[in-house]
């Protein structure tokens, strides 16, 4: 088990990538603190982990609220004695459209959750990790942090790019304390949204629209991101810090693909 003995906090883990990562972390031996805004969904994730023989608690927190993040980290240490891993996963796509058209409240909310939430996570996790002699922080950026899309928007692009900068800056700051800080940049991942019904993600027209211009002719799965996060959380990535791991089926390295070439 790759996270045996470790204590991990996963924000936004009531659904999607966060939930999948919480389940995987627990399977790999970590004691997991599931966190999010929806109590019922969070308790359900904890139940799933426990039914599988894992250890987890739920702690309600809004990542954009400093007090919540402070309490989340405090509750973690109180329950499990320490903190080894933090996955800053919580994020919102508050607006899809042109930059100037995004309402100011949408901008503020997007930046507060996606970027300030990561800052707050790092802020409160670092002292505990220093006490612990080290740790690993992974933040969830996006391929839209390095490339624009008509399905993205201003606050999303800026916040996700901001996470990459914050990752590098904090990697430098906390390397002397053996705290490694990296981020993952997912592409089009199915089953991510809390608001969409599950069957939406398997509709042929959805899969077609989302993967038509991407080299790998399929959508990603939340598992694909969870495994990338597991690699960065575990000691297998001991020499990796300040890195961005892109999990996007090749989307951001390809020029716009006019159409698929048939396998030769």
């Amino acid at each position, binding site marked *: 088990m790759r996270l045996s003995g470790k204590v991990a906090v996963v924000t936004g883990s009531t659904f999607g990538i966060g939930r999948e990562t919480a389940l995987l972390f627990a399977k790999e031996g970590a004691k997991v603190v599931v966190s999010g805004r929806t109590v019922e969904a969070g308790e359900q994730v904890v139940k799933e982990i426990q039914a599988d023989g894992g250890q987890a608690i739920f702690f309600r927190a809004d990542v954009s609220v400093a007090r919540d993040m402070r309490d989340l980290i405090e509750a973690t240490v109180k329950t499990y004695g320490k903190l080894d891993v933090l996955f800053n996963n919580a994020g919102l796509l508050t607006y899809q459209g042109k930059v100037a058209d995004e309402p100011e409240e949408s901008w503020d909310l997007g930046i507060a959750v996606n970027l300030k939430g990561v800052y707050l996570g790092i802020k409160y996790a670092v002292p505990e990790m220093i006490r612990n002699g080290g740790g690993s922080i992974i933040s969830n950026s996006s391929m839209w942090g390095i490339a624009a899309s008509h399905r993205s928007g201003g606050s999303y692009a800026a916040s996700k790019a901001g996470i990459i900068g914050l990752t590098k800056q904090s990697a430098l700051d906390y390397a002397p304390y053996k705290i490694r800080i990296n981020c993952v940049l997912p592409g089009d991942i199915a089953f991510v949204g809390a608001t969409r019904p599950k069957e939406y993600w398997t509709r042929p027209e959805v899969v077609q629209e989302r993967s038509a211009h991407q080299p790998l002719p399929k959508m990603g799965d939340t598992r694909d991101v969870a495994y990338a996060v597991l690699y960065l959380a575990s000691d297998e990535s001991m020499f990796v810090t300040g890195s961005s791991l892109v999990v996007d089926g090749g989307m951001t390295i*390809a020029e716009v693909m006019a159409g698929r070439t048939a396998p030769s």
Partner: protein
Amino acid sequence: MRLKGKVAVITGATAGMGRASAVLFAREGAKVVMCGRRKELGEEIAKGIREEGGEVIFVQADVSKSEDVKRVIKAAVDTYGKLDVLFNNAGINHHEKGDPDQEPEEVWDNIIDVNLKGVFLGIKYAVPEMRKVGGGSIINNSSVNDTQADEVSMSSYHASKGGVTALTKKAAVVYAVDNIRVNAVNPGPIATELVDITWDQLNDPEIIEMRKTKQPLRRMGHPMDVAYAALYFASDESAFVTGATLLIDGGQSAAYRDVQ
């Protein structure tokens, strides 16, 4: 075991990152074909892997030679029936004046042949075999020096590694339809023979501390650090990852030199 049932070819497997990957891939259940130029050393490492229960053969080969690379891929298929994973790891550098106006032309040609053409040849001959089994994973060993310049490496080293990164992306885009993923690992300073550190010295903490001023993490990397990254890309855990470059550099590229 994360590579159970898979057949993996690793080039430059007689030292450093290639050797560590051969050991790790075998432990994770892969049947491994090691290749390198040093036959005696290669056979000895293979024997060690077999002694701990791994399945492995060694094939003497120079990755800059087309016939050699063809022979390695053929040996994998002849011995183990197929090819799933190729780690294009082999690489060289020289320790002499490497500025473009000073690097000897023969050195340039040699380094480009091994570091860049070797990767091209590996991809060239692996892809048809991977198509036969419905996909595969190719990992190329690039470097932080694909985008960052240093004062001591040969110009050809930088150029070859930049080329490896570009070739990784090209191959990722065109072979995605064949379900062949192509990614690169980009190591920073790793304690290997390339920097005059022998395998026996690797676990010496003092050695790993050498040249610690360049990385925020303040130590050199261990070949196993790169082997684990290669394992991630080799396994199905990275099924949605292609064309990616993963820095394993202790934070070197994330910061300017003012790491103190």
